[in-house]
């Protein structure tokens, strides 16, 4: 019984780490730029394939491919901020429509260039870890470690650095921030670069743990939005709570219910939490 409970806790941590990793970039872009980047799932998926290209096709291995992927996707983030989001910065609806258009373009582009077949990447770290009756892949532990590192780094960046203060200022009042001498365009570019870079990194990391396929874009986006809602729209520090909650729902719900009922049940709970506590667990932190 104890080993079962511990096993489930480990499962929750492993699943949550994937969702937290993906949600970080989305949360950053939304918190600062107030843009619901629905293309985040597609960017995550493209990041996975870029990592595959570096790691497998160019034979650079995962540890070289991951930082390269982050850089490439960050540059892509700069591009989409300048040409897709900047023109609609003050217009939430148009920015949302642009994000949706990006999804279609990126997914169809991936279908036609990468092809519809799945890809597999070699694991970051091979082998399993066995603690008594509990077993899990060593690469998942690496993902968990990297997630903790990134979350900590992001929180420190936002709260303790000048650029972080600039992001806070823009999030609260972009016009006042501009009057204070903060370069909105430059900070927004940086935020989008970080958001897309994080999405790409997540795609590469998770792609090596799971399997890469174009269809992951949609499934991961739905869960990412669930994490954001649970943690609180505008909160970055609260992502860990939202991620843990989503991971717990994903892991424990299907254990007690038929799997086909688990998704609707999960999201029904998310809606319920939204009704009871609309600001999520941590509300408007950023």
């Amino acid at each position, binding site marked *: 019984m104890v080993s079962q409970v511990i*096993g489930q806790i480990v*499962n929750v941590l*492993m*699943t949550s780490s*994937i969702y937290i990793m993906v949600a970080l970039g989305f949360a950053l872009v939304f918190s600062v730029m107030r843009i619901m980047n629905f293309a985040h799932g597609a960017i995550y998926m493209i990041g996975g394939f870029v990592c595959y290209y570096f790691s497998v096709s160019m034979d650079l291995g995962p540890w070289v491919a991951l930082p390269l992927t982050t850089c490439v996707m960050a540059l892509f983030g700069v591009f989409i901020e300048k040409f897709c989001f900047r023109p609609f910065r003050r217009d939430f609806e148009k920015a949302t429509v642009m994000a949706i258009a990006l999804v279609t373009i990126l997914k*169809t582009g991936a*279908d*036609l260039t990468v*092809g*519809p*077949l*799945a*890809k*597999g990447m*070699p*694991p970051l770290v*091979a082998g*399993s870890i*066995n603690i008594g009756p509990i*077993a*899990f*892949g060593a690469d998942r532990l690496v993902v968990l470690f990297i997630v903790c590192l990134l979350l900590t780094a992001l929180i420190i960046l936002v709260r303790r650095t000048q650029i972080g203060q600039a992001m806070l200022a823009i999030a609260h009042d972009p016009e006042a921030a501009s009057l204070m001498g903060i370069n909105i365009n430059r900070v927004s570019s940086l935020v989008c670069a970080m958001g897309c870079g994080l999405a790409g990194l997540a795609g590469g990391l998770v792609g090596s*743990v*799971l*399997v*890469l*396929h*174009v*269809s*992951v874009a*949609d*499934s*991961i986006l739905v*869960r990412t939005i669930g994490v954001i809602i649970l943690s609180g729209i505008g909160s970055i520090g609260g992502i860990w709570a939202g991620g843990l909650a989503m991971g717990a729902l*994903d*892991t*424990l719900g*299907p*254990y007690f219910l*038929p*799997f*086909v009922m*688990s*998704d609707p049940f999960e999201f029904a709970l998310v809606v319920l939490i939204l009704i009871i506590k609309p600001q999520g667990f941590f509300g408007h932190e950023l």
Partner: protein
Amino acid sequence: MRRGLLFVALASICIAVGLAPIYTSAAETKVIKIGAVNSLTGFMAAGESPSDPGMKIAADWINDKGGVTVKGVKYKVQLVTEDPKSSAEGMAAACIKLVEKEKVKFILGGVNPMMNIAASSVTEPANVLRMASYTVGNPDEINAKFPLTFFTNANMQAARPLLTWLKETYPQVKTLAFPHPGEGGGLDSRRKNIEPIANKLGFTVVFSEEFPGDMVDYTAYVKKGLATNPDAWVFTDGWSYMVAAQIKVLRRQGFKGPILSIDPAIVSEVLQLAGPELAEGYASASWEMFSSDMKPVFKKEFVARALKGGHSNAWMAWGFNDLWATVQAIESAQSLDPVAVAKHLRSMKKVETLWGPAVMGGQATFGIQSCLCPPQAIFVAKKGKPEFVKWVQTDVP
């Protein structure tokens, strides 16, 4: 003058005789337009888009051999392709365009049950014969109300031979886990058609549950299955990436039993996705693009032509077989009337496929004989490569 006239006359006769075959051939060689509906975009593209080049390879091969001959008239095959974009509405629209604008009488392709049902809603009333690539066995997809719809592959066709092989190779296996992907309402039909076969062979099914087709992480699902202590994990359906993702979790969770796929999740693909270490021992009744154990027609006509065209996706074989089976039915019936061809196809003793002769089946299971059941090859992943085990004859009662 007289000699000159004689020379002109003789030359004219020679030219006329020389040109006669060309004239006659040109007059007798016609074109038969055959529609093809393969999703090139969207979630079904993985399974359907390779059929497109497969059908084109088959069309080129058939035309190079002289085309289709019906009552002394030769017809070149001309494929007209539409992309149903992985949706039922898209499939209906694609079929409507092919039937009404292109006036086709034969349509190829279709894997997803919802899309197959949508296609039949157009093709059956229009008396168009459709040779679909795959059925999950959903009774709304294949039944006596669709006499003009055929399937070159059925989900359960390899269940009996593969489970028999499992019993012979792993006699210690008594309990099975059957993971089912939650797509298109195939769960009930898989349970109804496959589980009795397992029970008859002496197995007990301890886990039989659906997983969402868009699942990100299979850990919780696999753990739930492993809690029932199955001796073997047997996929009844699912794309290679689903199989590979579950294999990764299964092996890392410490599961050491055999893992198989009744549905042809190709061994070399699963090896590439899951890695040679984790996929070791994985078996499937399928085919391999580069195996020397495949049939001569597969190697010479399909693979050689595919590679020449720069293609290497094994799933093209489905598209190739769809067209080849249709052409065989037309030639055997000596008719271009889809109703006559359908009736004749049902009575054919065998239909050649890339894997050997297929037999017709489905009467007892679906109330109509609309399934072509070809032989399949059992392959096992051994030291990073797919190893041929043996050929088996598939069947759908």
